[in-house]
């Protein structure tokens, strides 16, 4: 028995074992992370960022023609190497053998530095690699802006599918759908909605309080080729500030601090859908967070300072009363009475307010606050079975 244990330990020694310290001791997970890091090291061999962007990763066969021959030859080799690495799967010994055989000394040093950042520095893998896949988009991430979560990816995909299906069922609409995202962070939600709903050309405004987040989101927008003309704007603004609502409604001119650049899609008369993934971690849970979250991600994007962690949900719901386009003029005298909500909203096919919530907050957030009359509230669970998303309807 003793010998078998030794054999197992020998099989998974070295870098995988070191990496396992950052993966709760899961060696298969550690092997995958090691493979992804090694892949990123290989990726750096494609000289300039411009070439890198053009040829993609792993270098596509077709694009090799677009690159001059000296590049072309090494790209073919890189493609083969990347393929060999990908074939290692979650086999730690194979990944280790690969890096020992194929990486140069300085590349191994870079790999080891990254491993060290993961284990001793508690740096999230996404920050080491600089990106996170999100519903088919590669979202750039940079500390301290919140890393997109897979749970978010899931409900956003579902929401986009619902909207697309409703649109298909109802046919052409008189005006584009207007969507507002609050607390947008890296911009992943708005970017994915804009990307998936291209054919509807929705108008999307996304707001975040952190300047760094807004800049990152705009950088993502540029890189993904979702340009401003297609109707997506990232704006810096504080949802606890009362002047934000009229600003968003386009009734008062943008403040000088935004450079007057954003016109917030002129004639804005209220939004059809509001989505938000606001901070929802209460203080006592925040204190117990893993260092990879607490030390690396923005406290302002995570912490809701009340005991149940729902203060931002309540704030946003209050704002929603003023921000959502509604039938009739009673509720908001300053809005032109003839401009009601989008027909899709009126049919009740799509929700008006969508929140991502914490694992035990569904009852608190689903409760009627009395500010807006919701006709229906739906709770969606994520793939792990935790209640993750609340959608509120008004029809």
């Amino acid at each position, binding site marked *: 028995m003793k010998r*078998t*244990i030794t*054999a*197992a330990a020998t*099989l998974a020694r070295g870098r995988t074992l070191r990496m396992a310290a950052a*993966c709760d001791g*899961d*060696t*298969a*997970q550690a092997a*995958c*992370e090691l493979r*992804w890091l090694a892949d990123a090291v290989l990726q750096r061999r494609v000289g300039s960022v411009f070439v890198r962007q053009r040829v993609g990763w792993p270098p596509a066969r077709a694009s090799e023609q677009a690159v001059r021959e000296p590049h072309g030859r090494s790209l073919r080799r890189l493609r*083969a190497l990347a*393929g*060999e690495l*990908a*074939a*290692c*799967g*979650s*086999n730690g010994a*194979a990944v280790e053998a690969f890096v020992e055989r194929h990486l140069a000394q300085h590349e191994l040093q870079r790999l080891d530095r990254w491993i060290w950042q993961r284990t001793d520095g508690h740096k*999230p*893998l*996404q920050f080491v690699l600089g990106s*996170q*896949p999100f*519903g*088919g988009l590669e979202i750039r991430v940079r500390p301290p802006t*919140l*890393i997109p*979560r*897979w*749970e*978010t*990816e*899931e409900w956003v995909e579902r929401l986009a599918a619902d909207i697309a299906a409703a649109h298909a069922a109802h046919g052409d609409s008189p005006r584009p759908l207007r969507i507002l995202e609050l607390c947008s962070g890296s911009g992943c939600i708005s970017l994915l909605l804009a990307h998936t709903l291209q054919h509807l050309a929705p108008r999307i405004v996304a707001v975040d309080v952190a300047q760094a987040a807004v800049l990152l989101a705009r950088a993502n927008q540029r890189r993904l080729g979702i340009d401003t003309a297609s109707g997506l704007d990232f704006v810096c603004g504080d949802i606890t500030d009362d002047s934000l609502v009229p600003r968003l409604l386009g009734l008062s001119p943008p403040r000088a601090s935004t450079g007057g650049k954003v016109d917030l899609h002129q004639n804005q008369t209220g939004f059809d859908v509001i989505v938000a*993934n606001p*901070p*929802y*971690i209460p203080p006592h*849970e925040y204190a117990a*967070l*893993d260092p*990879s*979250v607490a030390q*690396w*991600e923005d406290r302002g*994007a*995570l912490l809701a300072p009340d005991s149940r962690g729902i203060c931002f949900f309540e704030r946003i719901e209050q704002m929603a009363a003023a921000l959502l386009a509604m039938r009739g003029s009673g509720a908001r005298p300053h809005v032109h009475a003839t401009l009601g909500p989008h027909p899709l909203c009126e049919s009740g096919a799509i929700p008006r307010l969508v929140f*991502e*919530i*914490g*694992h035990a907050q569904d009852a608190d957030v689903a409760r009627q606050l009395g500010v807006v009359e919701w006709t229906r509230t739906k709770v969606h669970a*994520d*793939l*792990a079975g*935790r209640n*993750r998303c609340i959608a509120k309807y008004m029809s």
Partner: protein
Amino acid sequence: MTALTRLVWVTATACRGACGPVIRRAAGPAAAPRCARSADDSSLLASSLAELAQAASKLLGSIQAQKDWSAVEKEAAELRKKLEDEELWTRDAQAAIEIQKRLAKLEGDLEKLKNFTERWDEARSMMDLAKEENDASLIADLVSDMEELEADLRSYFVRSLMTGADDQYGCFIELRAGAGGVESCDWVSMLSRMYQRWAQMQGFDVKVVEEVHGEVAGLKSATIQVSGDYAYGWSKTESGTHRFVRISPFSSVGKRHTSFVSVQVVSVAPESSISNAKQIEISPNDLKVEVMRSQGAGGQHVNKTESACQTERSQIQNRATAMQLLRAKLFQRELDEQARLKSDHYASIGDAGWGSQIRSYVLHPYHMVKDSRTGRQTNNVDAVLDGEIQEFMEAALLQAHQGGANGSAQRSNDDDF
């Protein structure tokens, strides 16, 4: 393969056939002195040349016997005549295109046959010349020509046998540990590596789709995806049980261990293939997606990349691969069902045990890999485990072509080591 690419390919081989030998002969004298140093060498070369020539002529013979080529030629001539008719194009363009496609295929086949025959004739006349003059350098040169011709003929012949509906697609290779405990888990990881190496050598793309780690070492099961033209056609004969004998490094007593792994190869049925009469449709409502996730709060609380049983960072990729695997398995089940209905031919594989054993790999007390269906064997186990299994595949494909009846008779009494 579309008619266009096939034509391009044919032209390429035709060019190679026409100018290849010329170029090689021009380079000959420089290379020759190295090849033939003594009389022994030259007689050795002559005998290997004779062997190669025999193999090549046999292959050429079976290619010629495979079809009634004069009938093919007649059909091609008829089609050509039909296409000359201008009215056909105005009357029914679709039919004309079909005829054009068929003609391109026939012409491609004829061209290849002609090319092979020409190369063979040329090589044989050169052989006669070399024998007469006893020219050692020419013989050395001819050996390499003949080797190439024989390899081309063999791969063309085996490829021409792949006429199944889904032979041209990629495939999933699934490996499952059978009897043998830790040993068979280790055997799964060795086999998985063997197939990956094989696929890489053939220029296919390989991806590890799923791996379940064993409790002590190795893998309980593994699935790899091989994509490329005719990946399934080549590897379909690998389905079955693979037996492995060695002194286990996991046991302290140093006894000989036998372990089994069952391999199943399923083709990747593309979503929109015309040849699949029955499309496989998976309604989202019939699907129940279950994902293993760790316990805890999730959401904003955690930023770990969850990859339990998943091999890519992107959820979309993981999901797409899972769907492809599911579709392939459903398709295979349907094929098995059809095969069972047609006859009681043994189409699907059973448990990992003795019944469906196709190959033995022995590391102790001697080194030997032996295929129990074809009887083909080699002592170089290391090379085989490094992915050199193409010959076994070719042999199995050839035998499967020659008829299942005597093949299964041979299999039953061949487990004698």
